């Protein structure tokens, strides 16, 4: 079989075999609707509630605070729009960062069009939000602070616990998009002081189409999806029982193996970054410490990101880029611009996100192949002068 190295675990992950095993009964035989009164339906309900309890214990939350959704995007949309609607009479100001995922960014841009006011906080050169800036941005009409726990492109871990403390001191709700963080770094809704937290199952070896929103007890949140009143009337729609059971199994597994796996991935990630920094006119994006264990991100001058990704693909390596050419717009990623990279350099970005199956040999292979790809493309580049 041709070489296949999957280095795009920040995009999605392989379903864990434990999760698949946990899901199978609900895909095959136990297909009852958890809302049905008969025992066959209640079997599904019992499994769903066990999954909820398992998710809660992984986040140091209570079962009743976990609401199942279709994924991170829905959770982000719901948290933001749900607060905006519930508290719109109290105030219409929201604070966020300039490096949020599109699910948060585009939702807030839509709220701006609807008359809400949003403060987009800058970040430092490594992508960190300054908690003091958050504090300064709070106004009497601020109803929500939403800052991601860890960045999807450059892996920066944000000081959410400090931001959460500031939010609570000011009596403002705090939401964090923890889609990249959950299952990869310890997530604790109490020490983080969060009121709302979004997560996505397929980022930690759970099934696609699963996610959850943690909603602190007592938080006012309007529902986004109306219908049969499932999830205590907060999120209607027949529950994805197999998906929720699989997501919970995957999260339990990820949390159990986190101490060892995090150490292993951090070492591989640093080896990868350092190996690639041997290329001239290359630089790491995001911090050297306090970054997601598996996420390496770099820029190489005078080469373009999409070309790198396509050439890596031809060599059997899956990676991604924040270059403009990977999107419909001509602008490079807002995250790379927010950390102060000039546009011409931001075009040359590549993200390699390692995971459970990544071996040290894979890392050596990636270094060797990406070095060759960058050299090839530079030889073809009219602006490259060695």
């Amino acid at each position, binding site marked *: 079989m041709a070489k296949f190295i999957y280095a795009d675990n920040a995009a999605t992950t392989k379903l864990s075999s434990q999760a698949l095993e946990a899901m199978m009964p609900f895909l095959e035989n136990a297909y009852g609707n958890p809302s049905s009164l008969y025992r066959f339906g209640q079997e599904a309900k019992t499994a769903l509630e066990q999954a909820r309890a398992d998710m809660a214990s992984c986040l140091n939350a209570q079962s009743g605070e976990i609401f199942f959704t279709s994924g991170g995007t829905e959770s982000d949309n719901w948290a933001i729009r749900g607060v905006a609607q519930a508290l719109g009479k109290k105030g219409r100001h929201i604070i966020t960062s300039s490096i949020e995922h599109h699910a948060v960014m585009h939702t807030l841009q839509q709220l701006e069009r609807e008359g809400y006011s949003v403060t987009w906080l800058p970040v430092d050169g490594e992508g960190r939000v300054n908690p003091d800036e958050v504090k300064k941005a709070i106004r009497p009409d601020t109803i929500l602070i939403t800052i991601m726990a860890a960045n999807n492109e450059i892996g920066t871990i944000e000081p959410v616990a400090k931001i959460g403390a500031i939010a609570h001191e000011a009596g403002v709700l705090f939401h964090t998009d923890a889609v990249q963080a959950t299952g990869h770094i310890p997530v604790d809704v109490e020490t983080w002081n969060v009121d709302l937290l979004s997560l996505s199952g397929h980022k930690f070896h759970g099934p696609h189409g699963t996610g959850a929103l943690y909603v602190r007890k007592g938080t006012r949140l309007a529902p986004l999806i109306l219908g049969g009143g499932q999830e205590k009337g907060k999120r209607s729609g027949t529950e994805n029982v197999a998906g929720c059971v699989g997501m919970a199994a995957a999260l339990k597994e990820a949390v159990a193996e986190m101490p060892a796996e995090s150490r292993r991935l951090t070492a591989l990630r640093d080896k990868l970054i350092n190996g690639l920094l041997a290329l001239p006119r290359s630089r790491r994006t995001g911090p050297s410490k306090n970054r997601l264990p598996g996420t390496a991100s770099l820029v190489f001058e005078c080469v373009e*990101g999409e070309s790198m990704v*396509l050439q890596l693909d031809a060599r059997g390596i899956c990676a991604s880029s924040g270059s403009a*050419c990977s999107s419909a717009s*001509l602008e490079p990623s807002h995250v790379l611009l927010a950390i102060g990279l000039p546009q011409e350099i931001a*075009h040359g970005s590549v993200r390699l996100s390692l995971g459970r199956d990544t071996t040290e040999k894979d890392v050596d292979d990636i270094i060797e192949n990406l070095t060759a790809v960058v050299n090839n493309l530079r*030889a073809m580049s*009219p*602006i490259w002068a060695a």
Partner: protein
Amino acid sequence: MLYSDKVMDHFSNPRNVGEVENANAVGQVGNPVCGDIMKITMRIQDNVIKDVKFKTFGCGAAVATSSMATEMVKGKTVGDALKLTNAAVAQALDGLPPQKLHCSVLAEEAVKAALTDYYTRQGIDPVPIMGEQCPHDCSCCSG
């Protein structure tokens, strides 16, 4: 897949990469800020493009359109090369995704910039032949 097989072929095995020695027609268009730059060098003899090469910084479509454009003008008379259109380049590649069509425009512009340079070097005013050149002041090129 985002790209046609032809685009991937020209991206993976680009034709005519490099710089022609003793070139008498050189054109460069694009801007690093916008993420693609094409440089085309030609040697024109007896009004025929004897040799043509390119160097490109850009995405897969930028490389493929450069490669295809050089193939399409190689061995042609200057007059025939002037008739190269971005639509013809895109068509020869079995089409491009909509957001990549600007790359084919850049390839046509690069060929025309090289031919403009050729006329200028020959002491011929290019404007009556080529028309006014793209001022490269749109949002992309001006950054």
